[in-house]
C-alpha cells in the first residue's frame, strides 16, 4: 500500500475540527454499547480471525499520529495505523502483543471497537535475527536506490523492520 499524503485543506476542515473538539468537551462518558465489564472488540486480518468478538479491558493501538489506548466508552475514532504493536489487555494480567503491518482502528458510535490489519503476528513469533538482517538489507537498499519508487519501498521496509525491533525490545522486558 502506498498511501498518498494530500496537502492540507483549510477553511471547512478547521471548522469541522473545532466542532469535534467542542463535542469532545461536552461528551459524557459511556455510550450505548459500552458495558460495565469492558469494551466489545474485534481484531481481524485477511488470513486469520484473531479476535472475532470479545469483551476486553483495553487495547493499545499504534496510530500514525501516536499510540493511544481504547477503553470502554471511548469517543468514536477512525485511526490509520502505522507498523507497530497492538496490545490487547483482556484483563489486567492477560495481555497479548501483536505486531501489525498497518490498517485501521475504528471505535464506532455504539462504542464497539475494531482493528482491521493487513497482517498481524504475535510479537513472540518475530525472529530477532531475521529482523536485524532486514534492517541491514533495507539500509543498504536505501543507499543504493536509483529511482524514487525504489527509495520509498526501501524506506517502508526499513520502517517496518525498525518497528519490529522496537516491538521485540518492548515486550521482552
Amino acid at each position, binding site marked *: 500500500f502506498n498511501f498518498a*499524503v494530500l496537502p492540507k485543506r483549510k477553511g471547512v476542515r478547521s471548522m469541522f475540527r473545532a*466542532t469535534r473538539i467542542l463535542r469532545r468537551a461536552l461528551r459524557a462518558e459511556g455510550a450505548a454499547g459500552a458495558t460495565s465489564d469492558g469494551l466489545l472488540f474485534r481484531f481481524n486480518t485477511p488470513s486469520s480471525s484473531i479476535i472475532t468478538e470479545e469483551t476486553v479491558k483495553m487495547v493499545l493501538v499504534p*496510530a500514525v499520529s501516536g499510540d493511544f489506548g481504547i477503553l470502554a466508552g471511548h469517543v468514536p475514532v*477512525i485511526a490509520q495505523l502505522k507498523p507497530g504493536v497492538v496490545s490487547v489487555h483482556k484483563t489486567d494480567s492477560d495481555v497479548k502483543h501483536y505486531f501489525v503491518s498497518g490498517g485501521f482502528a*475504528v471505535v464506532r458510535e455504539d462504542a464497539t471497537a475494531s*482493528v*482491521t490489519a493487513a497482517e498481524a503476528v504475535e510479537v513472540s513469533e518475530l525472529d530477532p535475527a531475521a529482523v536485524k538482517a532486514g534492517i541491514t538489507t533495507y539500509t543498504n537498499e536505501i543507499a543504493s536506490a536509483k529511482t524514487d519508487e525504489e527509495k520509498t519501498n526501501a524506506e517502508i521496509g526499513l520502517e517496518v523492520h525498525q518497528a519490529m525491533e522496537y516491538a521485540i525490545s518492548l515486550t521482552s522486558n
Partner: protein
Amino acid sequence: MYTSRITKACRKPFGSRGFASEKELRNRLSTIKNISKVTKAMNMVAAAKLRKHQDALAIAKTFAAGLDGLFFEAETEKPTMVIPFSTDKGLCGGVNTAVNREAKTQMMQLENKGEEFMLFTYGGKSKGNLRRNFERKMVGGILDCGGGNPVTFAEASEVAEAIAAQDFGNANLIFNDFINLITYDTVTVTIPSSELFESQAEEKFMAYEEEGDEGGLFKNFYEFMLGVKLYYVINNAQTCEQSSRMTAMDNSSSNADEMYDKLLLQANRLRQAKITKELMEITSGAAAVQQ
C-alpha cells in the same frame, strides 16, 4: 413434396432399420461413459476447492465485519457504475446467469429513468454476455483473477485500485452471496466513489475523531475499506462458483448415468433380437432342408 437433407453424419447405413444400429448405440454408450467420467472428476475437484473457499470465506467475512456499514451511498448526479461479479470459466451452473440478469435489470431501469450509467465487468462471463447490448457502456473490467485459489488481499487491493480509478458517482457491486451448498442469493452492495467519499466523509463522520495524515486520512480509509470489502465480495463469488459447479456436475453425472443405463438396455435388446432372428433363420432353413 420435398426431401429433407440428411447430413453425412446421420445418414443411416444401407440395410438398417428405423432406429439406431448396434454400432451407433455402442458409440453413443462410450461417449456417454466418457462424459460421465469428466463430470464426476469436475465434481470432485469442485468439492475439494469448495472446502478451501468456504474456509477462506469465513475468515473474509469476519475480516470485513470490523469495517462493515462505514461506506455510505453518496448524494450525487454522477453516473452509476454497475459491477457484476462473474466467473472466467463455464460449466458452473446458474451463478453467472443470475448476476448478469440482475445487472441487465438494473441497467435497463437506469436507462428508463434517463440516468447515466457505466459498466465495469469482473470475470469473462459478464463481459461476454453483456457485450451484446451494453458494449458502449463498458469502461473496463477484470479478467483472470484468482487463478483457482481463493483471492488474496493483495489481489483484492489491486481490483480495488482499478475500480477506484474510475470516474463515477456510486457503484453497485452485484455478486452471489453464499448461504449453503445448494443456495446462494444474488445481492447488490452500493459504495461511493473515492472522490465523493472524501468530500462527504467529513460530514458523515463528524462525530468521529480522526487520527491520521492530515487531509489524507479519508482517502487512505476509503482505499483500505474498498480492498477489505472486495476481499469479502470476491471470496463470496468464488465460493458460490465452486458450489454451483459441484451441483451442476453432480446433476450432469446423474443424467449421464441414467442415459447410459437406458441405452445399455436398448443395446442389449437389440443384440438379443438379432441373435434370435439369426437362430430362427437357421432353424427354419434347417427344417426346410430336411424336407
